[in-house]
Each structure stands twice: as C-alpha cells, then as structure tokens.
C-alpha cells in the first residue's frame, strides 16, 4: 500500500485529530486552538481537491477501496472513494473553510467548545460520504448529528434551545428508524456492505422481497427526515434559522447528507439491475420532491424574516434534488449533482450574509445580546468590535453579495443556479416521444419555485437595503465578508467554466446508475446483473 492510498481516510482522520487536540488544549489557549482548526480545514480543502482529481482521474472513473485493518471487505468495514464521495467531501471542506473563517470574527467565542464540535462535525459528514458500509454510515450519521446538536445550540438562548429540542427529538427518532431499517436489511440479506447488498438484493427470494423493501423504505424515511422531505421537514426552518450563522452554514450541507444517502443506496440497491425490485420507491421520491418544492415555495413566500427565508430555501433545494433523483434518468441525476454543487454554497453564503445584513438592525442585534448575557463575554468583545471599519462600500458589497445569492438560489441567469436548473430540465424535455405529466409538473415546480424565491428575496432585499433607515451602516470585518465572497466566487466559477464540472457530474451520474465498477472494485469476482438483463 503506497502512501497515497491512505489519503482516502485522511478526511476523517484530520478533523478527528484536530478536534481531539482542541479538546485537550481547552478553551483557554484560544489562539492555538483556532490555528489548529484553520490548519485542519485548509488541509481538508487541499486534500479534497486532490481526492476529486484522483477520483475523476480517467473517463471510467476511479474507485478506491480502503480496507480498515486490511481485512477483506466482507469481514470488516471499507471506505470507498469514488466520484460522488470525492465531490461531496470537497463541498463539505469548502463550506467548512468558509464557516470557520466567518466564525473567527466573533461567533467562536459565543459559547463553549465551538472548535472541537466543528471539527467533529466535519469528521462525521466526511465519514458518512466515504463509508461503504451501512452500519458504519449509521455511526458516522450519529457522530455528525451529535456534533450538530452542539453546533445548533451554540450561543445558547431560548430560541435555540426551543428549536434544538425539536431538532434532537426528531433526529433521534429518525436514527431509531435507521437502525430498524438496517437490521431488517441485514436480517434478510446477511450483509451490511453496500456493494455486497447491490449483489444480493436482486437475488433475494421472492417471499423475502417484501421484507427487504420494507427495510429499505424505513431506512429511506430516516434519510428523508434528514433531507427534510415534506411532511417530515417541519423541524428544519425553525432549527436552521435559530442556529448561529456559521453553524447554519455547515448545517446546510447536513440536509444534503440525507440526499447523498438516498442517491447512493437507492441507485445501488434498486437501480436498473435490481431485478424485481428495480426502481422501488422512485415514484415516492419524485412525488415527495414535488410536494417539498410546493411546501418550500409557500414557506418562502410566507416568511417574514431573512433567516426563516433561508430555511425555507433549503426545503426548496431538497425538494428539487429529490424530485430530480426520483426521475431516475442518468442525465437528470447529473443535472441534480450540478444543482447541488451550486445551491449548497449559495445557501451557506446566504446564511452567513443574513447576519451581516441584519447586524445594523434591531432584530439581529438582540440575538447577539442574549448570547453575551448568557456567557458574560460582553466587555472585551465590545472593545474589539470597533476594529471593524464602517467603510461606505460595505452596504454596496453586502448588496451585491445578496443579489448574487438571490440569483443562484432562485436559478436566474447569468449565475450557476440557472445552468443547474437548465441541466435538470433539458434532458427531461428533450427526450424522444411525448413529455409525461410528471415531467411537466417538475418543470412547473422548478419554474414556480424560482419565481416564489425571486419574489421573496426581492421583498426582503428591498426591506433590508433600501427601506431600512441608513443611519446604521453595519460594521463588517474582512474575515466575515471574505467567506461569503469566496462561496459566491465558487458559484461564479461554476458559471464561467461549467463544461468540465458538468462532464464530471455526468460521469458521476453514469457511475451511480450502473454501479458495476464500484462493486467490482470491492468484490473483484462479484457478478452483478447488467442493467435490463433481469427484465
């Protein structure tokens, strides 16, 4: 095994070590802990770019298997690096970098243990993306959720405690459903390895098929609660809008972990090669996605505050992804991945931006005041706050960033959100033969949800930038606006050079829809039926 093989596990090990160090060093040595945290996220960004380059190395796509303890895949847990997991790890690292840098201005002092929690959060998310084992996925889900409970409550305050209570109960219940689903699948198939499941599910005896499908459905509900599909997503806007901005930014990829799990497992277990179970649940995903878009759009129109608007926007993006995945076409899945890569940074940037915009106003100020009261760090912080210079251009930069976020999230030209929606819709409408009713409804849902988002964002934007009294120009420091601009620059880069990214996404979608290469890397002599052969 050469050293580069160990890179697969590095996205889990680096934040783990950084988190442990941060705990050991304690709250007092803040500068050192901060430096460690920054070093960790920077290393993760560099590493994940390298991983994407490795995974997208050749046309067929590279799948790397990392056997923990070097046991054969059937006996122990494997980590698997392929295009999708590399892409998701890259997204996570970028968000991690942006959120951590943003938090350095003030938020990391708003409560205890921010840095360890943040690192463990990254570790859990990366682990969930990289693991090739169903139960290990559960463990990483729990690591991720446990850290997110802490982060969602970071800064304390009544609103956060209230929202956090619901968040934790809902997610604990979903975790129990996850366990039930996993054990049902294990009871029938006798394996927890995802690749092995892909081999065994088509061969399950007819009388056990209902059990496997029930298990998968229960498992799916656990993921869909995480992805906030209607009617299981009522917890999301409240929690995300109450969370502190850096936490909310990193939480915005948390709901995409559910989407990732659906995408990975559904296509692996119930793809075209799955025999009698092929396509199981696809209609539910599609319909659920459409309902989520509808609910999210109504929520977008109905919200009064920016933070809740951002929460509702997360719902719309989840719904769009679910509906696009549920359509079950290779090209549409590619478009959905592009949409994910453009929407996630934009929504995270929006969460960060909200706090900056609202800083000059009463609403945002009293949340901070509450946290200061609770933790008693008022005096020294006020002194430092004056460092931020109220440059006249601040309002302009904030406004331009806001417009950027709005364009990407609503999917208007010229930014990447528009290209993403186009990439989802083009394959749907250009298919040979007539356009099905489902396709029309997805088309309508995407366009109308974009319209709703534009209306809501325009209203909020006018409120914040034009109608507000100009007396208080928000004081913004460069480490706060920098991450927002970085994330938006990512979206702009997607707009300028969409071709290589889209090619990567298409190759990823092809690999997802025909997981033979994935399975064969892990089990070289496995025989997976080719798509369509079973029917």
């Amino acid at each position, binding site marked *: 095994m050469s050293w580069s093989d160990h890179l697969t596990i590095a996205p889990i090990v680096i934040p783990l070590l950084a988190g442990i160090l941060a705990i050991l060093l304690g709250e007092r040595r803040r500068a050192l802990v901060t430096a460690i945290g920054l070093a960790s996220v920077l290393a993760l960004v560099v590493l994940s770019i390298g991983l994407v380059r490795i995974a997208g190395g050749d046309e067929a796509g590279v799948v790397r298997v990392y056997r923990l303890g070097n046991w054969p895949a059937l006996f122990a847990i494997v980590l698997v690096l392929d295009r999708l997991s590399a892409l998701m790890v890259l997204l996570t690292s970028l968000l991690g970098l942006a959120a951590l840098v943003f938090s350095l201005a003030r938020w990391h002092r708003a409560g205890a243990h921010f840095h360890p929690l943040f690192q463990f959060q990254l570790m859990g998310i990366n682990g969930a993306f990289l693991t090739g084992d169903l139960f290990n996925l559960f463990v990483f889900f729990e690591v991720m959720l446990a850290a997110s409970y802490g982060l969602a409550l970071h800064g304390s305050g009544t609103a956060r405690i*209230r929202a956090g209570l619901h968040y934790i*109960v809902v997610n*604990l219940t979903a975790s129990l459903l996850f366990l039930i689903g996993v*054990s049902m699948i294990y009871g029938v198939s006798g394996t927890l390895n995802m690749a092995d499941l892909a081999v065994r599910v088509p061969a399950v005896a007819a009388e056990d098929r209902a059990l496997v499908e029930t298990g998968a459905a229960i498992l799916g509900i656990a993921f869909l609660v995480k992805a906030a599909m209607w009617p299981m997503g009522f917890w999301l806007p409240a929690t995300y809008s109450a969370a502190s901005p850096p936490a909310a930014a990193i939480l915005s990829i948390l709901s995409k972990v559910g989407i990732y799990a659906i995408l990975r497992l559904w296509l692996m277990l119930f793809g075209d090669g799955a025999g009698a179970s092929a396509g199981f649940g696809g209609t539910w995903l599609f319909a659920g996605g459409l309902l989520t878009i509808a609910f999210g759009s109504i929520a977008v129109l109905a919200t009064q505050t920016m933070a809740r608007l951002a929460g509702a926007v997360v719902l719309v993006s989840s719904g769009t992804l679910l509906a696009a995945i549920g359509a079950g076409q290779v090209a549409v899945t590619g478009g959905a991945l592009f949409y994910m890569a453009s929407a996630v940074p934009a929504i995270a940037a929006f969460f960060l931006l909200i706090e900056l915009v609202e800083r000059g106003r009463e609403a945002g100020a009293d949340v901070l005041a509450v946290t200061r009261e609770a933790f008693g760090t008022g005096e020294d912080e006020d002194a430092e706050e004056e460092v931020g210079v109220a440059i006249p251009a601040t309002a302009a930069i904030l406004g331009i960033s806001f417009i950027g976020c709005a364009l990407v999230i609503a999917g208007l030209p010229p930014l990447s959100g528009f290209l993403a929606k186009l990439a989802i819709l083009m394959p749907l409408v250009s298919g040979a033969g007539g356009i099905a009713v489902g396709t029309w409804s997805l088309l309508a849902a995407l366009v109308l949800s974009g319209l709703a988002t534009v209306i809501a964002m325009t209203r909020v934007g006018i409120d914040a930038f034009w109608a507000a009294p100009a007396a208080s120009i928000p004081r913004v420091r460069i480490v706060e606006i920098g991450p927002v601009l970085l994330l938006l620059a990512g979206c702009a880069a997607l707009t300028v050079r969409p071709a290589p990214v889209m090619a990567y996404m298409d190759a990823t979608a092809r690999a997802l829809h025909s997981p033979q290469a994935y399975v064969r890397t892990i089990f070289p002599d496995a025989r997976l039926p080719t798509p369509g052969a079973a029917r």
Partner: protein
Amino acid sequence: MEAIVSIAIGILTGSGVWLLLRPRTFQVIIGLSLLSYAVNLFIFSTGGLRIGAPPILQRGEAGTLAQYADPLPQALVLTAIVISFATTALFLVLLLAARGLTGTDHVDGREPER
C-alpha cells in the same frame, strides 16, 4: 420464544411512541429510551433467536449459521446501546437547559393557551 420477544418489542414500541407524542419533555425522553430498548431487542432478534448456541466457531467447523449464533447483530446492538445512551444523556442536558430558560417543561417551551 419468538412470540414472547415480539410481544415485548411491540409493547415497548407502543409505549415509547405514546410517550414520545406527549407534551412534557420528561415523557418524551422516557419514550425515546423505551423506543431505543425496543429497537435494540429488534436488532438482536434479526440474527435469529437461539438458546445455547456458541457465538464463535469450534476449531475445524465449517462456517454456517446452523452451528453458531450470529455475532454481528450483537455487535450492532452494542454500538446502538452506546450511541443511544450518549444521545439520551445529551438530550437530558438540553431538557434541563430548556426547563431553566423557558420556565416550563412543555416541549414547545411555553404552556399551550387554554
């Protein structure tokens, strides 16, 4: 034995779900605990319920589940117990924080209007 275990799981799940839907945080936490017991028993039973079967193979035996009890569900249960224990402890802390900050033990943080 299957009947007894499944009835036990059913009763635990039923009581757990009932308590989970109650408005007081303490009822919710007990409900979650009961549910996690039910799930642990359920995982345990997916390996097949057997009495007196050794958890490991004898030397020289061929490896089929006919000879030994499946050890994997037991390992899964162990992991699940640890995790649910930790999350319950975390939830307990939050429950106390909510009680202290809001002055009520209602899950919404305020008493419903009558």
